């Protein structure tokens, strides 16, 4: 009896979690001019969205930022993870604390701090306003390098390091050990971390909102600014496309991780990032 009740409750919760997402997707296929008045199935708003430069330009910006951010985050995060895995505790503890700090600091706080920093930096270097694509990218990497570092380290520690030790013992330097021994085994974790970094950056609103400056728009910023005028079919189609893109990369990240994780437990640790 208790079980049945719990089952019903769980079903309702899943409905609660997915119905809103489904609603966005379904209404994106509404052919009518008004989002909420169903006027036949149509994909025309996707076409209109993809033909609208005020959507495609921000879309390109978002892709550029997300890619650059993912690459930078992977490099910094992986190097950090390799170093952290065997650092002595008195050194590791404060670095760990710093990594977690970057993850839990409220985005609004980091966003305004980064804004003030970049404005001040521009003044000091006499460059004027440096806010734009670069500042968004640089700000995104802070959070995402930590995400990659955590995922890669979990994998690195989990797989044991006897092969690395053998490689070092046999006289290989860090670089060739990394290329020949570590990278092949860590690649899935790095790829998964990179995919997550990509989605987080592509989806990000608050940090981008503060450090974007006047002339630069990302897709989430574009959608947000149009919400002031209510919901429109074009924006709804764009939102559905964002959902599709991020869902795809999340599922890809999960599959990559899962295929290589020997133990189920390892796979369940990752979502808790």
């Amino acid at each position, binding site marked *: 009896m*208790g*079980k049945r009740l*719990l*089952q019903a*409750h*769980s079903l309702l*919760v899943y409905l*609660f*979690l997915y119905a*809103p*997402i489904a*609603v*966005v997707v379904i209404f994106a296929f509404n052919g009518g001019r008004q989002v*909420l*008045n169903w006027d036949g199935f149509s994909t025309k708003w996707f076409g209109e969205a993809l033909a609208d430069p005020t959507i495609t330009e921000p879309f390109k910006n978002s892709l550029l930022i997300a890619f650059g951010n993912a690459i930078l985050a992977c490099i*910094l*995060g992986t*190097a*950090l993870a*390799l*170093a*952290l*895995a*065997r*650092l*002595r505790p008195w*050194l590791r503890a404060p670095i760990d604390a*710093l990594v977690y700090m*970057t993850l839990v*600091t*409220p985005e*609004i*706080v*980091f966003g*305004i*701090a980064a804004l*003030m920093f970049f404005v*001040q930096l521009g003044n000091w270097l006499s460059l004027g306003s440096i806010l734009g694509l670069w500042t968004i990218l*640089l700000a995104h*990497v*802070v959070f995402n*390098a930590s995400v990659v570092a955590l995922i890669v380290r979990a994998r690195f520690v989990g797989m044991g*390091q006897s092969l*690395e*030790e053998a490689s*070092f013992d046999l006289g290989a330097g*860090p670089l060739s050990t990394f290329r020949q021994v570590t990278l092949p085994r860590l690649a899935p974790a790095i790829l998964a971390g990179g995919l997550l970094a990509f*989605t987080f950056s592509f*989806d990000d*609103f608050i940090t981008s909102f503060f450090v974007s400056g006047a002339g630069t728009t990302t897709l*989430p910023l574009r*959608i947000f600014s149009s*919400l002031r005028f209510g*919901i429109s079919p074009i924006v709804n189609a764009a939102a559905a496309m*964002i959902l599709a893109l*991020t869902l795809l990369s*999340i599922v890809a990240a999960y599959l990559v991780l899962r295929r290589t994780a020997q133990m189920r437990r390892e*796979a*369940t640790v990752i*979502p808790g990032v």
Partner: protein
Amino acid sequence: MRRRGAIRAGPRYPGWLALPALGYYGLFFLAPLVLMGAVALSERVGHIDFVYALNFDNFKVLWDPLYGEIFLRTLRLALFGTVAALLVGFPLAYYIARYAKRKTLLLLLVVVPFWTSFLIRTYSWLIILDPDFPALRALKWMGVLADDFSVLYTPTAVYIGVVYTYLPLMVLPIYATLERMDWSLVEAAEDLGDPPLRAFRRITLPLAVPGVLAGSLLVFIPLMGEYLNPVILGGDKTIYAGNLIGLQFGSSRNWPFGATIALVLIALMTLAVLAFIRLARREEQYG
């Protein structure tokens, strides 16, 4: 970091590999936060400018019932969100951990929404809560809801939105503790005559406390700085602490004051975290 420690056996990757990331954090994370502290203490000149100083006026300004009201409202929102997420999330985590067959899949289904765009998940409620949304119209037509029923752009919409947004963060840690639980303890208690509810209270609940605390923390902290839900679903009509900060960098253009509010917010969160940790420690010892 420079000397390779000989304490632990085996060669390893050199510690300096941490330096690029640490340099990056130093420049783009710590330096901005330090600068924020300096700006909070600076003095406003004219309407948009400020000079660095050692000036606590901003903190005094914040000591005003008007702002106290905003912080209390934020606290209420954060507490409501945490408790509601707990009430909704705990039974789900319990079901997955104890009864479900495809645990990994069900857990993944909880995580996926959390990893999809915050903005769009909030935006989706803009559609659902619209008075013209077909399901709402149907409910009105059937007389379940009053004709003028509308919660969009009210605090109620914000409350719904935050529970929706943060629910996955509550489920994960609770599931993690329940999953490790030995259910035969519960079965034994039930076999020995404890009614299910009593067995739950005496065995499951105490063992789940660390997960509940972790989940509450994960929901409570970001909620104290919540920005997006009040703007989109609340129609920017009700101001919470995060919005108050945002305003100082938008239309009000008072950076020193904005930085001050952010500092106070971080201080309040740190206090909350410390309190949570103490609670968790005590539970570990006596629970």
